[in-house]
């Protein structure tokens, strides 16, 4: 449920920064995450704040343990921060209950995983349709949308195959198609080229870049690859749970 009071605060902050509220896809405010481990408390994120505009292709880079994945988990509403707030389309996502967060993930966030995370027992078409089915889309509409996206990504001929029978690049395209089915506000990609060879990785990256620039999709990509990071619109570099650099490329 949308928290009106909190949204008003966000709008005020945006006005202070002279950023048009409608152009903001995501905003993180002083987000901290502290894990309790057997070795004691581990600060994974320490008051991280950033704003991402709609249509921006942002990379999050940093060494292992810098907090990249934690940021992605918070932004993707997969985990709650210890403190701080995250707004997607102006909505304070952690003011919601778990069910509302699940709906938000379904309708406003698209996920692309390093290891594709496709359901191998079912077809490519059904994998792509799945978020639509969860959203309550009718089977005909979901079919139509899924086929359009698969066609745009050049893999519509694979619609009846099982993902396990496709190449890594093709599987990642299926995952990209799945992330687009509900027309989300932001797409989160966790090392999307990490399991692919260089050539296929480049193709997948080019596809994502095309999505961002041609179709004005907001994409946040976690990567280890500095060359790919430089090819995005903006790179947020993390170190020890803090933003070390925020660079417009």
């Amino acid at each position, binding site marked *: 449920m949308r928290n009106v009071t909190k949204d008003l605060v966000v709008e005020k902050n945006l006005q202070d920064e002279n950023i048009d509220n409608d152009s903001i896809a995501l905003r993180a405010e002083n987000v901290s995450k502290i894990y309790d481990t057997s070795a004691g408390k581990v600060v994974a994120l320490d008051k991280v704040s950033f704003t991402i505009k709609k249509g921006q292709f942002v990379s999050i880079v940093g060494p292992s343990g810098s907090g990249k994945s934690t940021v992605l988990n918070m932004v*993707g509403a*997969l*985990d709650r921060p210890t403190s701080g707030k995250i707004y997607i389309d102006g909505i304070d996502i952690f003011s919601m209950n*778990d069910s509302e967060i*699940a709906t938000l993930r379904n309708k406003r966030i698209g*996920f692309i995983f390093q290891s594709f995370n496709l*359901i191998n027992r079912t077809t490519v078409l059904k994998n792509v349709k*799945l978020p639509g089915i*969860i959203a309550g889309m009718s089977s005909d509409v979901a079919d139509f949308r899924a086929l359009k996206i698969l066609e745009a990504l050049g893999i519509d001929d694979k619609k009846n195959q099982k993902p396990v029978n496709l190449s890594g690049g093709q599987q990642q395209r299926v995952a990209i198609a799945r992330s687009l089915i509900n027309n989300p506000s932001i797409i989160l990609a966790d090392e999307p080229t990490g399991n692919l060879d260089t050539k296929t990785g480049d193709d997948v990256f080019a596809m994502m870049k095309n999505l961002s620039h041609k179709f004005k999709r907001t994409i946040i990509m976690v990567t280890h690859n500095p060359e790919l990071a430089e090819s995005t619109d903006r790179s947020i570099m993390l170190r020890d749970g803090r933003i070390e650099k925020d660079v417009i490329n």
Partner: protein
Amino acid sequence: MNPKDLFLLSFEALVDRKVRTLLTILMVVLGSSLVVVLNGLSAGQAAFLEKQFNTLAANVIFVGSGQRSLSSFATSSSNSLIINNVVLGKIKSLSNVGDAIPEYTGSAQVNSQGNTQRVTITSIDPTKLTEELPNLEYVDGSTVKPNDRSSAIVGDTVVNPPGASSSFVTLGQTIKATATYSDSSGKSVTIMKNFIVSGIMKPSGNNGIDRSIIVNLDAGNELLHKLNKYDQVIVVATTPDDVDTVQQELTSQFGKTLGVTTPKALMAVRVQAASGNAAFILMVGIIALVVGAVGIVTTLYNSVTERIREIGTMKAIGAQNAEILALFLVEAALIGIIGASLGLIIGIGGGYVMSIVTTTFPAGGGQPIHIPPIFAPADLLKVWLLSLGLSVLAGMYPAWKASKLSPMVALRRE
């Protein structure tokens, strides 16, 4: 997610693990079919007993001697009285007693045209047979004259033994009965007698009568070497209302030296025994079903563990906890529905097969008794619902565990 999509996703997940799914379904099938078979046989037995007692007249009382009590339920004592004509006279003299019909019973080997079978010889005044069995009818022929020592009435099961393609005897045919007894020195003595079949009874519903050859008192006394000691007396009360009074009088006069019982009392004891038996059978069946349910827990728990990343992915793309819970519960329900339905079919078939097997190969080598199972639709529905309910219940914990998984933790799992 609409129910159809939910069903299809669950069904695909089950099909994906065919062998495990089939083995789990098999466990449910075994459990539910066992309950169906046992229930069917139990219901068949209860109906059989009821039918047996319904063939008996309502105003008769069975009085057994100490030599042979009527049944294991009849009271008997080591200080028992031998029933001879003196005792018979005393019984007849009791008030409210219309008649007292003495009877010898025993076992004999009967030969007919080269075929043999072991039958019960019931030796009674043939004209009084209807006092005990008011609904007695004949397929062919008629009853034996009281003084005719060489004629016999043959029961339906003797004429048409289970599994036989032709009749064992026909009307007018001569049969040879052979009985043995031990003399005072312990030596086995064989007595043989020929009888002409003068009547063939219609199935009476009373298994004891249907398996008998009925001869007159003198013939039975001689063949079975009873020495005028009756095995039982069928006491006919003046009216059914007098049964209790006569029973009290018999007990008052003879104490525990005679075994006295009524069809009503026998029925009550047997119904009580059948109820206990049914409860035991139900427990066995439920244990089998619970074993099947444990199989479902194991299967689905393994499935949750193996599909943990899939669950994480489903949650990441927006599946609600309730939808994950429903996915696994539908899997459990599908296992239950398929298992229970197959279990019902196999149980019904198995019940009939067991009934035929017990008829063909009677326990203890005794005479075959065909007791068809009874499968009441309401009972079948109860078993089906119980199997389904237990299956869904068994799926609860794994489904709940899956639904409560943190998406982040699930996605991290290799």
